[in-house]
């Protein structure tokens, strides 16, 4: 299973995270829901769904955090019977991204949290110096950009 990224600087840090933390799925996306990198997914439709759900969960958690605690919740963990989900905000020089990962008994929440911290550090140092593309996620461009990114990740670019 390989790691694919829309922007090449993300690929190294994400592949290292997957290798170190022993997770089965990993997804890095823009808060708008645009995918940036993935590991472990075999179908683009699954990536699309996971991105949409992760963006929605992150938006809900942020607002809930603001209501309850005066600041957004930036991390979320759900433990299922066999697999667990960890979702957190990754701040990079290119802006805040959302990170979603799924892991089983090969890993643990402690390991995932620890290696997520390293992933953020590695993304910070790997990010290119030039400014982030300033294009906002406009509704009219969203589907076109989403399809372009999915095509890049699944080799149909």
């Amino acid at each position, binding site marked *: 299973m390989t790691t694919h990224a829309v922007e090449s600087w993300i690929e190294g840090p994400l592949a290292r995270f997957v290798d170190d933390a022993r997770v089965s799925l990993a997804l890095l996306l823009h808060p708008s829901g645009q995918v940036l990198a993935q590991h472990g997914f075999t179908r683009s439709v699954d990536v699309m769904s996971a991105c949409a759900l992760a963006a929605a969960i992150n938006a809900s958690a942020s607002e809930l955090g603001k209501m309850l605690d005066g600041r957004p919740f930036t991390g979320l963990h759900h433990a299922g019977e066999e697999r667990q989900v960890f979702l957190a905000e990754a701040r990079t020089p290119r802006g805040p991204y959302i990170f979603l990962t799924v892991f089983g008994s090969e890993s643990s929440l*402690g390991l995932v949290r620890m290696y997520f911290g390293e992933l953020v550090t590695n993304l910070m140092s790997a990010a290119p110096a030039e400014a982030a593309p300033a294009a906002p996620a406009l509704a009219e461009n969203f589907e076109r950009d989403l399809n372009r990114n999915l095509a890049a990740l699944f080799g149909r670019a």
Partner: protein
Amino acid sequence: MSGSPFAEMLGALTRQRGVVASLVVDEHEGMIVDAILQFGQDGDRIAALAASLYRKARQSAHAAGLGGVHFLQMDAEQGRLCMAGRNALVLVVATSPNANVGLVRVEMLRAVEGLA
């Protein structure tokens, strides 16, 4: 030091000569339940990695038909990491090289009975 049910146990272990950190860790989550650490020690990192190590050792012993793991000791250049577990909790103690590991071991095996 916290007021958790493990505070007294961890305090007794930390008073042993050469003990630099003692933690009770959830074996499956790799998260700290309670700990006594020195300033600057990254308890979360110790907990995550030690729990993973203990879990793998337990699985290896089981796979080899050796039964459960009572005590796990790892000698490193600048100290030792000792682990003992019960009921999905792992007692983790980090020591300097000059620690009396025999005494630490006895104290840990006694303390681990209190992990519920």
